[in-house]
């Protein structure tokens, strides 16, 4: 068996390799279940039955899908531009902070409140990513490190605020802000935590980004910058400008997701780990699976949603340890990255 490099892999092969990677991940995770003493079939049956066949389960999948969709769609764009944004978690938190700040302290007419919260979230989330993008274009700072580290800064900014100036009145010293007013809370589908306005926003934006990427000049520039920065420069494309615009979009979408979480589910600011259950990191898998196509995130985000909600079921119904979900997504990411070699290369059988 030999690997022959193939710079332009056919779409079908990308699909097959991705599906193959998922299948391998499911097999490995199944082996982990078996080692734990649980039949893999039983585990997968519980996960699928509990998430896809009843409304309660489906609503849990949707709830997880919302932030993954928004963050994931933004990340596809970043990855297309070869900007490895590992800081979506922090951008999401900054969005939550901005949205929460507007909700708590900016007296606005009720009708304007929610739009203003979303806008503030987009701006601060975008600014957070912009910081890393600017550092890269100006000083050549590696964006993987800067975005990752900015996550911690965002976490501590949030903890400082709810532990200090923004601490709520009736929370007995615990780390919460006050509750948002009813008109600052997003409506949900009855009986669930699915804040549908954010979901709708996610679907629209994922499609819009696809159009932006494939049908506009900016999208074209972005793809060129990603695939060949040297050629982009030669063609007169301002690489820093493209990267900065892209950073605002990817960070802004993460910020939007943060506002959705606090305005739709928690209705207040609280500890970082409670606001985001690692959506910024899980969305990396979502974006990777979508292979840089924002519209495909509409498929991959619910897929990760099923895994997250299904993992909860393993925890609730089968009393498996809560880390099982982390194992699952870890194996998934590992398989996807490893499978990359089969996308970029053709497999040739035989000696020559």
């Amino acid at each position: 068996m030999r690997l022959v490099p193939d710079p332009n892999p056919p779409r079908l092969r990308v699909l097959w390799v991705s599906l193959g990677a998922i299948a391998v991940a499911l097999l490995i995770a199944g082996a982990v279940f078996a080692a734990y003493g649980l039949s893999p079939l039983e585990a997968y049956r519980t996960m699928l039955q509990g998430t896809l066949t009843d409304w309660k389960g489906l609503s849990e999948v949707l709830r997880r899908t919302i932030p993954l969709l928004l963050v994931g769609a933004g990340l596809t764009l970043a990855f297309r531009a070869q900007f490895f944004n590992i800081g979506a978690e922090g951008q999401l938190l900054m969005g939550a902070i901005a949205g929460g700040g507007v909700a708590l302290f900016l007296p606005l007419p009720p009708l304007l409140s929610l739009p203003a919260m979303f806008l503030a979230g987009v701006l601060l989330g975008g600014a957070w990513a912009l910081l890393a993008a600017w550092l890269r274009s100006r000083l050549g700072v590696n964006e993987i490190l800067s975005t990752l580290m900015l996550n911690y800064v965002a976490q501590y900014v949030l903890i400082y605020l709810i532990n200090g100036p923004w601490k709520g009145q009736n929370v007995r010293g615990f780390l919460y802000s006050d509750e948002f007013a009813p008109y600052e809370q997003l409506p949900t589908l009855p009986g669930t935590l699915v804040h549908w306005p954010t979901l709708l926003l996610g679907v629209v934006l994922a499609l819009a980004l696809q159009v932006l990427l494939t049908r506009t000049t900016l999208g074209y520039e972005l793809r060129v910058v990603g695939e060949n920065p040297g050629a982009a420069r030669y063609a007169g494309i301002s690489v820093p400008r493209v990267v900065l615009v892209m950073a605002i979009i990817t960070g802004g979408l993460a910020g939007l997701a943060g506002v959705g979480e606090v305005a739709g589910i928690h209705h207040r600011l609280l500890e970082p780990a409670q606001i985001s259950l690692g959506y910024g990191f899980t969305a990396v898998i979502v974006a990777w699976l979508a292979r840089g196509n924002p519209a495909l995130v509409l498929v991959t985000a619910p897929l990760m949603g099923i895994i997250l909600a299904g993992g909860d079921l393993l925890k609730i119904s089968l009393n498996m340890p809560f880390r099982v979900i982390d194992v699952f997504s870890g194996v998934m990411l590992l398989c996807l990255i490893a499978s990359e070699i089969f996308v970029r290369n053709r497999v040739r059988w035989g000696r020559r």
Partner: protein
Amino acid sequence: MRTRWLLALVALLLGLGTTTAQDKKLKACFIYVGPIGDVGWTFAHNEARLAAEKAIPGLETKYVESVPEGQAMPVIDRLVADGCNVIFTTSFGFMDQTLEAAKKYPDVIFAHASGFKRAPNMATYMADFYQVYYLNGLMAGALTKSGKVGYVGAFPIPELKRHISAFALGVRAVNPKATVNVKWINAWFDPAKAREAAEALIAEGNDVLAFTEDTATVVQTAAKKKIPSFSHYNSMYKYAPDYVVSGQIVHWEKIYIDFLKKVQSGTYTNKNLQNVDYWWLLREGAVSLGAQTGMPINPKFVPALKAAKMTVNGKQVSVYDRVMELLKNMSSAKPTFDPFTGPIKDRYGVIRVPAGKTMTIKELNEMKWMAPGVVGQVADEPKQ
């Protein structure tokens, strides 16, 4: 003849009644905020769940660990669908959602730990340590040579304020000049931060350590530097048998067993829990003194504590005897001693508990001030 038939019928109905009552299975479900392996809060609740399962025949239990705070509702939905008729939510952060769930499922009984909101089908419960902290404070006051006792705290919430204050009152009862130096780590479970705080306290000259957070780190760090410490929440004797003096241990099972038995017998229903608030202390056995159950004081430290003297009502007594006497008093059916008996001033000199008064449960739950002897910045503290 007719009366005999009637009697038989009544007996039959009664019989049926009892069998249906027995048939109705009791299924208690627990929602934990952390992982069951945390050697702290959640571990203790889970141990108590297992103990309750053993103690109550026919009781079935189930748990869900590491439930994020904003997301208790979907889990409660699942548990109710799964046939749970009693649900315990074991974190302050679950309060509002538990209340919401109690309205949504009026037939299910809910109990929420450490909160203050109740409903006809929602009770609250708490096992509190302040008495035990006072006893540990007495011992710490006797053991410190530098007059500086270190304290690692999680968050400046009322629970910790009353614990640290009770501890400081104990320390000062033995050694009126000693200080209790507090460092906050702003986390319940963060071994790295706890170690940093403990090491800093030792470097600053504190030679006895106590703490309130969910790891055994402080005990381990103190042992490494050969310094005595007081354990917290669960048995930590095994981590440092030569250096753990005593500590506080929780027994949630006392509350769970009592509550569930009363549900089983029909004393508690989904209509009469509005005023059911368990506030259980030494008297009820919900907490105990020691670094290990059955060992109130590590035998290694008994001679030193017997040699240390303190003044009580003008008389010289050994610290060991005083601890044992107060432990017996507060564990009895009618305790006459309470650490928060006035007159008590806060550390800025403002009278907080007038002479002859003791603090009410409500006051303890909302406590903001700190007792004299506590050193270090404390958030949300009244200055006047």
